[in-house]
Every structure is written in C-alpha cells, then in structure tokens.
C-alpha cells in the first residue's frame, strides 16, 4: 500500500468519525467563525472608509493647495493665485473657460440625527466650474443654487446624517441663514458628506476677502499631470503644491485607516490566539477519544504520517467551515452598513458604508485555515507518536 492511498484511507476514516464528535467539532467551528466575523467586520470599516474617501477620486482631477499644506483645511490660495493657476496650460477647456474651480472649505456645527448633538459639517464654497471639474456629480433632488444667493445644496450622505438638511428647509449658522434647494449625488464619494454654496457668498460671511483654500482642476488628459505640476511649481509667483485627487483622498484617510487597522489586527491577533487554544482543545480531545482506533490503524501497518495528515485535514476542514460561516455572517450583517465618522484631517463628518470585499473574505478564510492548521498540528503529532501497545491497552 503506498503512502497516498494510506493517507486517503485514514483521512476518510477520520472524517467519517467526525459525526461521533459533533459537539466538540461544532465548538471549534463556532470559535473560529467568531474570530472571522470580528476580523472581517473590523477591517470592513477601514475598507469602507477607504472606498468612500477614494470613491470617485478621478486621476484626471487635481487639487491645488498652498505648498506645505496637506489638507484644504489648512491651505490658503489668494484670488490672484487662483487666477494664475487657472491660466496654467494643461487644463481642460470648456465653453466658459478653463475647468478650474477655486473653492473655500469651512466647517459649521450642525446637529447630527443619531445623537442630536452638534457635529462638524464641511461647507464648501464653489464656483460655477465646480460641476465641470466633477463630471460624476449630479443633482438628484431640487436644483443647483442660484449664484449670489444664500442657497445651498447638500450631499446625499449629509442630508441623511444631519437634521433638517432637506430641500425647502431654512438653516441658520451663526448670523447667516441659508435655504436648502437641492440634494446631490456623487457616487458615494466623500463629496456627498458636504454642503455646497456659492464661494462668493461664503467669502464675506467668513471674512475671507477674495481668498480661497484650494483650486480643483480638471486636466485635458490624464497623462498631463506631471507637465501641469511642473508648470505650477516653476512659476515664481506661485507657492503651491498639486496632488491628484485619488492620492489626496488616500492621504486623507490615512489616520483613520491606521487607527482601525492597528486596532483591528491587534484584536484579531489576540482573538486568534484564543481560538487556536479552543481548536487545540477540540483536536486534542478528538485524538484522545480515538486513541484506540488510531493505535489499531497503526497496528494494521498504517504509517504515522498518514495519521498526521488525517488529523490536520480534519482541523483545517473544521476551520474552513468556521471561516465560511464567519465570513458569510459578517457579509450579511455588515456589508453596506451606513455610518459616519470624523475625518481627522478635516475635523468634519464623512459618511461611509462598511465594505466586506472579496479580498477581505479571502483574507478571513486564510486566517481561519492558519488557525486550524496550528490548532491541528500538535494534536496530530501526538496522535502519530502514540505508543501502539499502551494505546491499545487503554480503556
């Protein structure tokens, strides 16, 4: 009898005997499923946040900030600078001129629906070119604001998360009053967490003179970024930095991602240790309850390595089942779960949905298999080392 057929035979016997040890096997499965649920759930927060931040981040769109600033919050671009930026070659041209939109970014305190307490909403002052710069953004309810008036349009997510941000409502921030006239959709990107108004109205309200904080630019072609950036940075009258939208957003999500990832992996690691101990317990008792059976097999001439393999296969199989159950439950329970948190870089609310991605699910399964393998290895070795004679004599 060759090794392979021995292994297959012993494994088949082992797997068939699982039904007699159903209780402890289910415990191992549940333990591992629990780890995979938590692992997948925590990382789906980080994943969902990243997705929202990158969202429709378009490589053809460039954000121009004051050099040394890495967020719009801390940036400042003068009116004259904004004009010079718009004149730089490489920008897409439309019937109304260059697709460059100088914008203001401030935050206002507004009550959140979920807690009733004030949270920061980003209020963005935009110019007519803003829509040309963001081709995916669409008004889905009401209409765009009239330039020069105290009208605002709100992002879908902001409208959902905050109180009274619906079409036709009046809201007051400080001494100015605004009217909501529209709701916009930006394909799930971070812009949906914002409120927009006319930059020219916002400037005096915040005593910003003729200055802005950033300029959003749509390039004539995706490949034109380097040339555009060089043209800007070599212009002696400008002290600014340009960054592609996807890069900007991934940089914006860095802090929260680091927090969630380090917490998530830390928790998952500790849980895995706990689950491995659980699996070890199950597999040791599985081996213990089959002592005589294994010894009989050995006495019949089966080698020790097929026994090792059979125990490992059982452990990995159980953990695989646990992994599939855990991943499935996490996917059902958490995928698409809508929530919002604070973006540390802009101190304002950003809405996002948990995302249980296929990559995350595979990672969870891999994690489960590793736990099962470690949990099965030592009991397997023990099974292989059983002294045949004493084992047969054992009750």
């Amino acid at each position, binding site marked *: 009898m060759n090794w392979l057929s021995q292994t297959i035979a012993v494994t088949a016997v082992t797997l068939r005997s699982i039904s007699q040890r159903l209780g402890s096997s289910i415990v*191992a499965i549940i333990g591992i499923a629990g780890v995979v649920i938590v692992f997948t759930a925590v990382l789906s927060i980080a994943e969902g946040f990243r997705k929202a931040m990158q969202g429709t981040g378009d490589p053809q769109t460039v954000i121009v900030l004051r050099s040394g600033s890495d967020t719009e919050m801390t940036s400042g671009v003068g009116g004259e600078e904004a004009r010079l930026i718009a004149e730089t070659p490489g920008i897409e041209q439309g019937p109304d001129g260059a697709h460059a939109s100088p914008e203001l970014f401030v935050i206002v305190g507004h009550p959140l629906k979920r807690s009733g307490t*004030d949270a920061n909403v980003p209020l963005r002052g935009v110019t007519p070119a803003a829509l040309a710069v963001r081709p995916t953004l669409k008004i889905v309810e009401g209409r765009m604001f009239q330039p020069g008036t105290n009208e605002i349009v709100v992002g879908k997510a902001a409208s959902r998360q905050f109180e009274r941000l619906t079409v036709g409502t009046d809201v007051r921030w400080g*001494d100015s009053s605004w009217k909501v006239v529209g709701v916009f959709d930006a394909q799930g990107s971070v812009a949906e967490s914002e409120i927009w108004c006319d930059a020219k109205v916002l400037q005096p309200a915040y005593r910003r003179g003729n200055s802005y904080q950033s300029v959003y630019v749509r390039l004539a072609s995706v490949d034109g970024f380097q040339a555009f950036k060089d043209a800007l940075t070599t212009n002696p009258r400008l002290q600014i930095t340009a960054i592609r939208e996807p890069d900007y957003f991934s940089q914006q999500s860095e802090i929260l991602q680091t927090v969630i990832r380090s917490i998530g992996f830390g928790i998952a690691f500790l849980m895995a*240790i706990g689950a491995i101990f*659980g699996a070890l*317990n199950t597999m040791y008792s599985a081996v213990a309850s089959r002592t005589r059976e294994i010894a009989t097999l050995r006495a019949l001439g089966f080698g020790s390595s097929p026994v090792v393999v059979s125990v490992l296969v059982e452990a990995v199989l159980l953990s695989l089942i646990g992994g599939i159950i855990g991943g499935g439950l996490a996917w059902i329970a958490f995928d698409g779960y809508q929530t919002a948190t604070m973006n540390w870089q802009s101190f304002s609310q950003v809405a996002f949905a948990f995302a249980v991605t296929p990559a995350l699910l595979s990672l969870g399964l891999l994690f489960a298999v590793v736990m099962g393998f470690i949990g099965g290895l030592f009991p397997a070795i023990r099974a292989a080392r059983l002294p045949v004679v004493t084992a047969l004599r054992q009750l």
Partner: protein
Amino acid sequence: MKFLPIVWRNLMRRKIRTFFTVMTILVAFVLFGVLMAIRAAFSYGVEVAGADRLMTIHKVSIIQPLPQSYFQRIRTTEGVKEVTYSNWFGGYFQDTRNTIQSMAVDPESWMNMYPEFELPADQKSTWYKDRTGAVVGADLAKRFGWKVGDRIPIISPIYRKPDGSPWEFTIDGIYNSTKQGVDKTQFFFHHDYLDETFRGTGFMSGMVGWYIVKVADPSTADQLAKRIDAMFANSQAETKTATEKSFVSDFAKQIGDIGSIMMAITGIVMFFILFVAGNAMAQSVRERVNELGVLKTLGFGDGRILSLVLLESCTIAIVGGGIGLLLAWAAITMGGDPTGGLLPIFHLPPRDLILGTALVLILGVGTGLLPAMQASRLKIVDALRRN
C-alpha cells in the same frame, strides 16, 4: 478547604485541556482590557473633563476665531472664577505626519485652569518669562526624545511666519500627570509669540480660538453659560458656551459608531471565547460522571458535589481571567498607545478593571453551574452505570 487537593487533582487529570482552557480565558480577558482601553481612548478623556469648566467657542464652529477682547469681559462676569484662552496651532515636527496637538495659550491662566498638568515650579516660572518657550507633555517628549532646554523647529500650515521659516521653540518644561486619563501629548506655547508675529497683518492678530472658563459654583454652570452667550449676542462673533464635558462628549460622538462598534465586538469576542472555554469545562465534568457517582456513594451530599464542581470552574476562571486582566493592565500601562500617537489617552480605567473582575466571577459560576447542577442531581445508580 480540605477539598482543595481533590479539586487540584481533578484539574490536573487532563493537564493539557486545563492549560488550554485557562489560556483561552486568559486571552479573552487580555482582549477585554485592551478593548476597554480603546473605548476610553475614543471617549477622549470625557471622564477627566472638568465639570466646573466651561468652553466658549464661536457659534458657527470651533474653527472660527473669537476676539481677544472677550477675555476681560468674561473675566469680570459674575460667577467666573478664572478664564483662559487657547488657539489651535496645528503644528508639525519635521514631517506633516508628525502633527502635534499644539496650542497657543496664555501661560499663567492656562496652568491655573488645568491643575492636572503638573509642572515643576522652576520650569513653570522659566516658561512664564520665556516668550518663545513651550511646555510639552511627557508622552510627546518621549515620542520625539525631547529634553528640557532643547530648541525645536515647528512648522504650522495655518500660521506661517512671514519669512517662511519654521517657528523655533525652547522646551522650558515637561508636564506630567498623576491623574489617569490626562492627555500627555500636548504642546503649549505663548499666545503672545504668535500674536506679535502677526501684529498688523490683519491675520489672526487679536484673535483667539476659544475660551475656557472656571465656574465659581458648578451648580450654576448652565446659567453662567447662558449669561456669557447673551453678553455676545448680536455682536460680530456670537458665542456658544457649554461645559467642557459636553464638548468632549460631543466630540467623541462625532467619531460616531466606531466606539459602539468596539463595544459590540467586545461582546461578540467575549461570548465566543467564553463559549469555547465553558464547553471545555462542561466536558470535563461530563467525563467524570461515574467518579462523581462514587463520591456520592461515599456520602458526599448534593450541595458538596455542587460546590466541588463550582470550585473547579471558578479556579480556572480566576487563574485565567486574573492573569489576563493583569497582563492587559501591564501591557496598556507600559506599552501605551498601539497606534503610535493617534490615541493620546490610552489607559485602563479602574472602573473597567472592576467590571472585568466581576466578569471573571460570573464566568466561573456561569460555566460551572450547569454541569454542577447536573452532577449534584445525579442518581447514584445512573452515575455509576454511565460510562
């Protein structure tokens, strides 16, 4: 007590299983400790926020500045014991990733306002006199290896010096705190230094970020808050005043569901791990049913059998849970923030340690109770027959 040897022998009959069960529980409680610390971190020190302190910010949002002239007006308001102000500087050290919680403050009134920032008297007096001096938290000093007397260049994207050079600060003091939950990663310097640099430019000169007010009588805090806001109503910069505690808790709420998600996870984790551990314990009782029958034959009463089994499960829970909580506490206290500076307040509140201890006992009784009751209710004949 005389039954301890028998409990001990029972635990040792399957050393490996006892060991793994103890380890599983140990890991569960380490996890419990860490998650509680994370929850505390996400609440941003709401426990230590002073109930006798009010914060006054611009009505629209905290990023809008308030005139410095409000200082005198608030100070002379009835019921105000102390007032100070602060300005978010947003500086970073060397790399934009190293953002520091840096604040321009009025040193004397600031230190009076926050007695929890403990600073040696000589360092305090040096700092008061040194216009370009700064005081930093012990954790921050440790992170960058700063010592008293060091010259530190800090760049702020918000406040650029007219010549574009970095701001230079001398570390005059390093504050610490014996109180748990106090943020020791902050950086304070003279507001005057900032203000003088921008004087006459029209940018932020004569302006501060927010005011902190100490109330003479905390029970009148709400009325005082209303009085302050009424004082500046219909002015250029209207204010919003509330207790420091409510600001901190509002801020924590902005982080949102993350905190409650952590709690949900703790629940799931504890449930699963304890399920695994509880099952192992129950199993070890089931295996010994006929032994228990023998004990009963020897004259052990139902109550005694019950307490024997419970004693066993509690021993496992207390050893595993106790060591676990201890390890968690040690790791959190010595290791500190796992994210490298993003969660400034990272500690295990004593309240959660007590909760953990209670959970250990509940676990011991909970996992032992069912098998213990089954064991105590056994009929001798059935027990002896079962194998």
